């Protein structure tokens, strides 16, 4: 009786030992900091010899009265609301084009996908040139059509849309490959049957393609949504949040408050909000997608 019990005991121990290095690292850099972010948000920022003091919800009161925070929330929501559907729509269109018998599809696929491989910082610096007033590519093209020069990144009205364009450009090609994979799984006899019935292109898309790529669309949408709340590279590289906070997004504001203003308590409260947003998306994913995206 002792031998099997011993074996079972050693099985539990071995299992934990194998996972131990991962557990320690994950706890150190994910679970503990996530909890201490929330805890720190109830404390003041230590100054010099004055240690952090418990101040309850004061940081959150400051936050509610902070116009830059609200600006960041508004910008971020707008960012998600526009970039997510547009990149998904474009990704699906790209996949349909590349999947069909179009001329030069290999070149097209390459053109669509390469932005994914480029470092965002490198791409941002190239896009900076496009947006430069007078000399930039956009203004040079605009001049051909008699349009006046625009300070794309310098005026509050155009700066955020200009950044959105970069995000859409970077992400659409990445999402395209998921749709491409989904399209290739659609049984060809479905299309043949539809053609026999003389169904129009739009009908085929609505009745066959769209429902069959729906799980992919949901999966991509969740990922795009998460990305939208973690965007920061192009803000740092292109606008620094300006002009007048027109392009400040949540993660950028956290970065600024934490590492430029060194206001640790407030940065923790802002991070808690971001954690809450991501947690909500995670729950939505759990209930919406659950087991529907298991193709394999």
């Amino acid at each position, binding site marked *: 009786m002792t031998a099997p019990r011993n074996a079972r005991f050693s099985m539990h121990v*071995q*299992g*934990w*030992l*194998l*996972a131990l*290095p*991962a*557990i*320690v*690292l*994950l706890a150190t*850099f*994910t679970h503990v*900091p*996530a909890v*201490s972010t929330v805890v*720190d948000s109830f404390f003041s920022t230590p100054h010099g010899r004055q240690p952090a003091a418990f101040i309850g919800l004061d940081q959150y009161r400051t936050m509610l009265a902070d116009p830059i925070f609200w600006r960041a929330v508004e910008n971020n929501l707008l960012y998600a609301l526009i970039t997510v559907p547009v990149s998904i729509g474009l990704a699906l269109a790209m996949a349909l*084009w590349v999947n069909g018998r*179009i001329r030069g599809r290999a070149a*097209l696929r*390459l*053109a*669509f996908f*390469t*932005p*994914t*491989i*480029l*470092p*965002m*910082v*490198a*791409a941002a*610096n*190239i896009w900076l*040139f*496009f947006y*430069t007033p007078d*000399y930039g590519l956009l203004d*040079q093209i605009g001049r051909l059509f008699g349009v006046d020069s625009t300070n794309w990144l310098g005026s509050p009205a155009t700066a955020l849309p200009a950044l959105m364009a970069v995000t859409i450009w970077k992400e*659409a090609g990445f999402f395209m*490959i*998921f749709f491409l*994979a989904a399209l290739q799984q659609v049984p060809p006899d479905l299309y043949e049957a539809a053609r026999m019935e003389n169904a129009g*292109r739009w009908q085929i898309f609505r009745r066959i393609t769209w429902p069959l790529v729906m799980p992919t669309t949901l999966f991509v949408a969740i990922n795009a949504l998460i990305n939208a709340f*973690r965007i*920061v*590279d192009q803000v*740092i*590289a292109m606008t620094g949040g300006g002009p007048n906070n027109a392009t400040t997004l949540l*993660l950028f504001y*956290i*970065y600024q408050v*934490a*590492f430029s203003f060194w206001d640790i308590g407030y940065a923790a409260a802002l*991070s808690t909000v971001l*954690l809450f947003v*991501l*947690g909500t998306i995670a729950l939505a994913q759990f209930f919406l997608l659950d087991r529907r995206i298991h193709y394999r």
Partner: protein
Amino acid sequence: MSVRLRELAAMIAAWLFGLIWGLPLLYAIWAAFHPSAFATNFDLFAPLTLHNFGRAWEAAPFARYFLNTVLLVLGIMAGQFVICTLAAFGLARWKFFGGEILFALILIQLMVTPDVLILENYRTLHELGLIDTLTGVGLPYVASAFGIFLLRQAFKSIPKELDDAARMEGASTLQTILKVYLPLARPIYIAYGLVSVSYHWNNFLWPLIVTNSVDTRPVTVGLQVFASVDQGVDWSVICAAALMTSAPLMIVFLVFQRAFIQSFLRAGIR
């Protein structure tokens, strides 16, 4: 007739978008290989030059930045392979006490990625004395929920009989992993490796925060420092630098295009 017309319209639209999507890279190539005078002046007969690359290379310690990035990317990948393999193997083949809950806890990291926790992780690194070190840049990423998930799936699909056979012949756990599981899960390792390398080659925010010297900065941060310090905006040199930092990954991608896209797919469908 109208079907033809519609196909033509679709083709024009596709190519228009293809052109827009390719434009930034095409422009960067144009500006980098022509003298500065032609950076904003598109003349088909402009002379070609490599001068901009030379100037960028001299203006900032890019050689060191590249070395840092390569060390970082390979180090993270090696660490991930070891740590995620062990954890994934334990979770896939040992029905140990609390394993299910543990796996659920691990998956939290898919949502709460290290870039959201920059503040606390910076303080942790500070306490460990790892600020401004390559180890510090890589450490939070070494245990990756994504890698554990991916490898666990792969290991689960490997027949248990192969495992048992190896053990009958007296192989230890480690030997079984090395001789049975690693070879059979090779495509997954390749996929995970490519995704990991391209992610960390391009990663920016965390290295920007943790590094503050030439000896530790990866190319992305180096490029940003270079582009923002360089006051006289010289697009040709900036484009040359941007191309340089992207080139190694781009070349790998062009050579292994199919494997790359397959990897992203395999890694993305979770």
